[in-house]
């Protein structure tokens, strides 16, 4: 894949021939579109094809790559490419209004011409990259992009742009950290190509993309797999539930944020109300102002909670909602590989059956015999024909089996990694949420404790505050006093002892 776009294109023709033969079965016939889709599928797996034809060894290089793949993710030090997406900018031209984001790359990889790149990309460029990654790497879990539209916000508002910028940064970082995806040719193009180069790349592939996506789902769901490993069924069910739960978490957090915002607004007005009142209460000015100060600091603390949640918590939950869909679609793709394989196995079994039939059958009444041919010859001819077909099919089945295995292995590694990331990310997000709340309550506590000091200083006649719980728990106090009294008695005993001696 040294020269961009060439290798998939050239191998495509070659493979579609084999596919056409392989798929000459009743399930997919007469469906040009479907056939082409499967052909595309093969195009993407071109590397695998070449590998199997060149190497007799059943051990696939993809599998070796996978070994590295799963190892690499644990070891962050091996990362040799660092990318950031920042600085969203709005552009207004005569034709359209759009936003671009600065993509900066630093890398030590040899196949990059320069160690550093800085360029600007639009959202559609990211979209193109993701589609390309899905096409060329169907066995891998490609991270999700932020959703296209947000109805709530203006598309070019600063808030929307910066939220999207952070999500895009996450997307690119996730790809860069992926041991396979980060070496994808299109990723390199995305990171290095000049704007016009990129747009020419994009034009080349536009048509395939749309056709590919449209009938994929229908195809996969139409066929019931015979022996899908329960692992994938479970994963499918898992990710469905997971997606649902993340959706719930998102809705809950949105509602909480809404309430918190309303709370914060009211709190912001609460302090000034006390300040206004303080003008009228000469003897209580200090107390009322202390109240106001405390309430103002509470309002500020709540604002920080909201900001933190919006910045660090909500985007992550949203990302994992989208991730659930990505996992679903990559599982579907895997099913497709297995479906191909199972169809081929069916086919070969049928041919084998036919061969057995031919062997024992009486060809006297066959069309050939009627046409005047020797029934024995007909039988042999048929046998030979079937034999070659079976041979071909056998190869096809082996190839598809390899491919499915590969897909399984790729996917397994990716899903493992995804599970690890998910665990780490959600854990971090939740811990962050808890910490933000702890900070909030700590600020609230110190604010009101200050008020208590003012209240106590204000009026010395005032007896001890009715509830001593604000400074130290009553148990502690009683403990202290009891230990003191113990000490006293201890001292006394000692003194007595001294006297006695």
């Amino acid at each position: 894949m040294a020269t961009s776009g060439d290798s998939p294109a050239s191998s495509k023709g070659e493979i579609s021939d084999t596919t056409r033969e392989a798929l000459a079965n009743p399930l997919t016939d007469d469906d040009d579109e479907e056939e082409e889709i499967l052909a595309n599928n093969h195009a993407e797996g071109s590397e695998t094809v070449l590998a199997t034809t060149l190497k007799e060894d059943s051990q696939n290089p993809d599998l070796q790559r996978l070994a590295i793949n799963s190892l690499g993710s644990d070891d962050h030090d091996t990362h040799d490419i660092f990318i950031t997406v920042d600085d969203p900018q709005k552009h207004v031209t005569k034709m359209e209004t759009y936003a671009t984001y600065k993509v900066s790359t630093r890398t030590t990889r040899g196949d990059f011409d320069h160690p550093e790149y800085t360029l600007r990309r639009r959202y559609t460029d990211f979209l193109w990259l993701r589609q390309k990654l899905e096409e060329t790497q169907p066995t891998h879990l490609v991270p999700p992009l932020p959703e296209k539209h947000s109805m709530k916000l203006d598309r070019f508002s600063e808030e929307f742009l910066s939220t999207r910028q952070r999500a895009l940064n996450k997307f690119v970082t996730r790809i860069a950290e992926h041991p396979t995806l980060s070496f994808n040719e299109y990723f390199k193009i995305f990171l290095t190509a000049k704007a016009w180069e990129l747009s020419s790349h994009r034009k080349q592939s536009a048509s395939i993309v749309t056709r590919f996506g449209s009938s994929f789902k229908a195809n996969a769901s139409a066929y019931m797999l015979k022996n899908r490993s329960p692992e994938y069924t479970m994963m499918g069910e898992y990710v469905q539930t997971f997606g649902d739960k993340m959706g719930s978490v998102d809705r809950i957090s949105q509602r909480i944020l809404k309430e918190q915002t309303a709370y914060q607004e009211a709190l912001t007005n609460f302090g000034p109300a006390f300040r206004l009142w303080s003008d009228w209460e000469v003897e209580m000015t200090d107390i009322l102002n202390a109240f106001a100060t405390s309430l103002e600091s509470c309002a500020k603390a709540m604002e920080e909670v909201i900001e933190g949640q919006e910045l660090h918590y909500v985007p992550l939950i949203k990302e994992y909602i989208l991730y659930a869909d990505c996992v679903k679609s990559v599982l579907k793709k895997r099913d497709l590989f297995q479906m191909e394989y199972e169809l081929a196995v069916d086919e070969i079994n049928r041919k084998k059956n036919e061969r057995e039939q031919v062997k024992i059958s009486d060809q006297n009444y066959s069309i050939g015999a009627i046409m005047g041919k020797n029934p024995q010859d007909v039988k042999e001819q048929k046998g030979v024909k079937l034999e070659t077909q079976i041979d071909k099919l056998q190869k096809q089945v082996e190839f598809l089996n390899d491919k499915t295995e590969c897909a399984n292995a790729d996917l397994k590694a990716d899903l493992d990694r995804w599970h690890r990331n998910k665990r780490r990310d959600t854990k971090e997000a939740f811990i962050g949420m808890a910490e933000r709340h702890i900070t909030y309550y700590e600020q609230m506590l110190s604010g009101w404790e200050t008020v208590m000091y003012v209240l106590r200083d204000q009026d010395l006649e005032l007896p001890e505050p009715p509830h001593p719980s604000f400074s130290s728990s009553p148990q502690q106090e009683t403990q202290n006093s009891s230990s003191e009294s113990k000490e006293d008695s201890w001292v006394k005993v000692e003194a007595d002892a001294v006297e006695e001696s």
Partner: protein
Amino acid sequence: MAVSSPDDSDSLRYDSDEISGSGDEAKTRNFADFIRETSKTRRLSDHVEILVVEHEKRTETGSMGMKDVYTAYLIESRIREENGKKKQVAGNPSSLWRRYSEFEMLRNYLVVTYPYVIVPPLPEKRMTIMWQQMSTVDHFDADFVERRRLGLETFLQRVAAHDEVCQDHLFHTFLLQGENWKDSIMGTGFQAKNCLSLLFLQQDSRIKNLNASFRLKKPDKRFEGLKIYAQELRNNISAILKIRAKLAGTLYGIHKIHGNYGRVFSEWSGIEKEMGDGLQSAGHFMDAYKDYIDDFMNEEEQISDQLKEYIYFADSLKAVCRKQEVMQYELERSEDLLSSKRLQRDQLIGKAPSKTLSLQGMRSKIFGPEKPETKDARLRQLEDQIEEAEEAVLRNQREIMSFMDHALSEVERFKKQKGADLKELFISYAVLQIKMAKRGITLWTNTKECFEKM
């Protein structure tokens, strides 16, 4: 005030010490004596504990066959223990049932009888500035009745704590005398006075609308200031309570919605292997976060009710100011009368120049000068009127002076009471907030630990 009396003394009053009702009457009187004697020298509230201990929903068929459904409150009064010793007074403690309208009657009577006193307010008839949707709450809602019970108790205790009002005989009988109380309070004729004062109030409000016509010549600056202060007190507390209601509503929402995390975490934990336990227990803490808000809301609501009392205290203060205005108005009117009469007299004896176009001048021009006899008679009549007017002025002056003296010292007392009450209220609010913050810290720290186990 035409309410059928709910008091049926035998069934309503019970005596916890005395089971047989024979000596009841005499013993209650003894307790009544104690109360009367005590209240003369000391604050009643220091020596007698007054509580509203219970409430009960009652239905009664009135004279017209109309059903009357109301809530009755059980008032219990007992002598406080001193130095751990119980005072042996017969008829102590005493308890009896009263309904809200009787409290209202008592308060109206006090307002009329002690015009210069800032009479403690009753709990509001309809609840205002609430954070919960109150459309569903009727007058027999448990929460509503409970708040009213507390409010009525505060009212009685405040009256008992007032140096002067606590001596009132009808107040004592309100606490002790089940039957005939209504008759005796009606006998004071306070309602007639009340009607008068109501008339004044109406007149006042009408005049207020016309504003210009009711302008005092010499408004007392102190009372003017108090009036403004009362208005500001009301406005400020209202503003604060309104914001608090909003805060309470949203805070309640925040906590309750966190409870949903509890549910989702628990469901989610079912499909997670390593994270499951942590999620599950974090969910439990979220449930706790949801639950404990109820207690805090209740406590905060009580504090806010205490603050709300001062909105109505502000109204009482305003009422006193208004009375001062009415009295001042009366005084000025009598002064005007006096000076006009004096002018008439002076004109008659020729001391003052009569207006050229006056009726007098016209008459003398047309009919010729008056006869000396009639002039004398008119003079005498005027002298009488002047004397009368002078007396009225003096009386009004005396009245307003004494009123203002009383009222101003009452305002001082009120200010002290307000300062102490508000301080206590602020302390309990701050303590509550601190409790809340501590609870929040503990809870989120626990939750964080659960998340860390994920």
